[in-house]
């Protein structure tokens, strides 16, 4: 992990959240917004179906960046994301990233989380300490 180079891709993280993942994430996080857990409610407010919590997907981006730092949670110092596309359960999420800069022991990684062509998180910037 100390041989990272600018422009280099970080290992991809692929996760397919199951149908009930949003329920478990709601319980774990305390965010019970019905757009994530109630298909009838989601459709009534114009969504195609229930959608993933944005902060769950941000959690996957954090996991990916932490993995680059060897898995130590204390190495992730900053994470900034923009939520754009909506994420759907039962669809594979792929987190990809590229090393943007290295300054001393601080590494900045540009990250995207996507389901196919749908970028659910973009302009994500993670700062890790090596």
């Amino acid at each position, binding site marked *: 992990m100390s041989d990272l180079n600018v422009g280099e891709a970080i290992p991809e993280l692929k996760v397919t959240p199951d149908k009930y993942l949003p329920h478990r994430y709601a*319980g*774990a996080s305390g*965010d019970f917004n019905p757009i994530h857990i109630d298909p009838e409610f989601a459709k009534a407010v114009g969504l195609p179906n229930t959608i993933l919590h944005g902060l769950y997907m941000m*959690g996957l981006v954090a996991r990916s960046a932490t993995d680059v730092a060897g898995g130590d949670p204390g190495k992730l110092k*900053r*994470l900034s994301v923009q*939520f754009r596309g909506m994420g759907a359960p039962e669809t594979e999420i792929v987190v990809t990233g590229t090393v943007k800069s290295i300054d001393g022991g601080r590494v900045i990684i540009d990250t995207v989380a996507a389901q196919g062509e749908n970028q659910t998180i973009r302009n994500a910037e993670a700062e890790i300490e090596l």
Partner: protein
Amino acid sequence: MTVKTEAVGKEWPATSYEVGREKIGEYARVVGLDNPVHFDREAARAAGYRDVVAPPMFCVVYSAPALGPAMFDPEVGMNFAAMVHGGQEFEWGEPACSGDEITTTAKCLEIFEKDGKGFYVFETRSVNRDGAEVVKGTWTNIVRGV
């Protein structure tokens, strides 16, 4: 229509949260983390933490409650039916470990209008019992058609 901006600079009362080992484990399992430092006290201590350590993004669990009153404040006046979570930033300081009591305060940083959308930016600051900052969060909510 235009957004109301009188809530910019407003702060809301602090909330307090005691971090627990099982809650950390529940969160870690949901996001697929298997590092034993999130589940096992001895493993966490061996890695240099005081106790079972929370994953960084566990910060939403202890900091979001402070934001609730801010988001629902009529002075802020956000239209929830048209709101999306547009952006999020966290900057971490001291790790959050099981047994820590974390106090979070929320403040409205900015409210502005751009391209027919309202942007509502809040900041949360979370500190532990020693007064050390654990995380600073910047939460951006976007309301369509203001």
